[in-house]
């Protein structure tokens, strides 16, 4: 059992409000990611869950019981720190055994459980090494073993992959996810990397400046972002935002911006009706734009500013009027800088936001 509820959770440091009114429910055995840029309050939230910080308002409920004042050692939690925080003067074995020794478990039980935990993350061969003699990935595994050896009810991961190189990160991502599923342990992952959150988490909570922006599955956030922040944070390269006007001609709703006119999907017309003539922010994901070098074929004409080859695909920056729009083109796209280019955006892939509230309209 490991159901967690954050109820109007808030934290202030002096005059700085690090977190405000966070409401979040985390189901048993769920892996949830707290995602946001640095300073958004995600690590503060994690440290409150760990009991290192005390909330200044609201409640943390573990299985319906408020644990605000419960000290860390009584919370049944395991935590992996960004720096791993492996004690440099202890061997791998001693590091993993430390939580059990503090509980004064018998020597043979410690021996057995440490080896079990080490086996889970495949570091049985490294037990006599010091942290300084380990690679980044091995340190990461040791930190995981130390967090799991107590058989915690809640696992907290603070940017666990940020100190690994790109290749190892992909590997550990899969391993941690697999381990979490296998153990069925409720896990909270803090990260600033949207790819990490998208690939690992069952659900993601996006935070910004101490405020929760949106909670949902990776698909929810990608296809139904609640506002421009979430839309811009999820996906790479980020979504293009184009200021536009809602126009209606011949019963057809379209977005008009400098040098372009994008027809809206038919089903959105009722939502946009009362905004006719008013400003909106149109969001288009680079991967949804189709580029064409055949003249006159597309509604929107622009000029190629730059082409960045990424191997499998190309990132193409296109100027339309004074606006720069970023698009992704398939491998083999032959456009060169300064060449005219046509763009096509499927109407159903257009996101619309209110320019003042930044919230999604449809």
């Amino acid at each position, binding site marked *: *059992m490991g159901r967690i509820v954050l109820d109007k959770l808030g934290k202030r440091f002096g005059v700085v409000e690090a977190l405000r009114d966070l409401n979040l429910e985390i189901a048993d055995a769920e892996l949830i990611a707290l995602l946001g840029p640095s300073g958004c309050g995600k690590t503060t939230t994690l440290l409150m869950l760990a009991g290192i910080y005390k909330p200044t308002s609201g409640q943390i409920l573990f299985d319906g019981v*408020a644990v605000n*004042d*419960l000290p860390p050692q009584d919370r049944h939690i395991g935590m992996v720190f960004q720096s791993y925080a492996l004690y440099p003067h202890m061997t791998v074995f001693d590091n993993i055994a430390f939580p059990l020794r503090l509980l004064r478990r018998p020597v043979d*039980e410690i021996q057995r459980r440490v080896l079990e935990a080490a086996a889970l993350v495949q570091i049985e061969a490294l037990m006599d090494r010091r942290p300084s003699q380990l690679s980044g990935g091995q340190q990461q595994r040791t930190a995981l073993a130390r967090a799991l050896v107590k058989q915690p*009810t809640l696992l907290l991961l603070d940017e666990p992959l940020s100190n690994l190189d790109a290749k190892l990160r992909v590997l550990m991502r899969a391993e941690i996810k697999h381990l979490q599923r296998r153990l069925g342990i409720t896990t909270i992952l803090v990260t600033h990397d949207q790819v990490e959150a998208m690939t690992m988490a069952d659900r993601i909570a996006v935070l910004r400046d101490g405020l929760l922006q949106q909670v949902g599955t990776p698909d929810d956030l990608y296809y139904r972002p609640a506002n421009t922040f979430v839309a811009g944070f999820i996906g790479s390269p980020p979504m293009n935002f184009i200021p536009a006007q809602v126009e209606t001609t011949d019963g057809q709703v379209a977005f008009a911006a400098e040098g372009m006119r994008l027809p809206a999907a038919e089903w959105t017309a009722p939502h946009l009706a009362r905004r006719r003539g008013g400003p909106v922010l149109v969001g288009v994901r680079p991967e949804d734009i189709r580029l064409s070098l055949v003249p006159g074929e597309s509604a929107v004409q622009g000029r190629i500013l730059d082409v960045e080859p990424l191997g499998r695909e190309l990132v193409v920056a296109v100027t339309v009027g004074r606006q720069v729009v970023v698009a992704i083109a398939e491998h083999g796209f032959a456009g060169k800088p300064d060449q005219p280019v046509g763009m096509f955006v499927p109407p159903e892939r257009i996101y619309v936001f209110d320019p003042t509230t930044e919230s999604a309209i449809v």
Partner: protein
Amino acid sequence: MEQVTIPAGQLRRWRTPQEVAALAQRARRREVLTQTMIYVLLTLISLPIVVPYLWLVAAAFSERVSYGIIPSGFTLNNWRFLWVANLGFVSGTAGRLPNIWQVVANSLVLAVGTAAIVVVVSTLAGYFISRHGFSRRAGFLKGALALQAFPGITLLVALFILLRSLNLLNSMLGVILVIAALHLPFALFVMKGFFDGIPWDIEMSALIDGASRLRAWYTVLLPQARNGIAAVAMFSFLWGWTDYIYVLTFVLRRSSWTMALYLNSVIGEYRFADYGLMAAVGVFYMIPSLLFFLFTQRQLLQITLGGTKA
């Protein structure tokens, strides 16, 4: 606490509300208790320092303190050494105390002279050793570190002989040079530390902008190291101001007395008799130290010598 071993995958229940409340209260109580104990302990062990200093200040302005902990009767009479010229000795026939202002002037010459030499020499050397490569640089640093470990007492006899042969006994210059030289290794490492802390990019960019290294030193690096220079200046001022041993050993003439010798003489003559006068002279002597202490204690607590191994 229940501690059942459960096979991985089968998870433990959270605690009940009663348990949580009890544990939270225990933790809170323990926290309050720990904090209280720390405060009580710190206060108790710090009292032996605080009380004598308070007494010293109180006694300097009181007619009596001897008969109890509370000084009584405000007076400025204890401070008469400031305006009564050539305060007489109660006992002994050695003569009279020198004029206090002459003594203060001597002390200032000693302190300022020491500070000037230490600051100039250690700033020059600290910069060079921090920023320039030259053969034997490692040897130079090892040597300086060894000097740092060299006990001053071993040199005292030889310094006496040396100053005598240089005809610097009884002169303020001799004492200044000795005190400055003996503290130079320490000052060197403090200054080196400050220069080490200035990013190389700043100096590199100054060179690329067309400065010579000499020019980069005084237009870019020196301003960056001003905290270090200030720290060394204040330290070395106090070394000169508070010194006792070297003036005692090398200054025999009454007209060259510093505050240390003056107070020592007052103690010698008035001990058991006039704690008020002694306290007043003591407080007067402490003023520069106290000012320094009040303004810089925060920075002072951060200065450490070199890096110790991690």
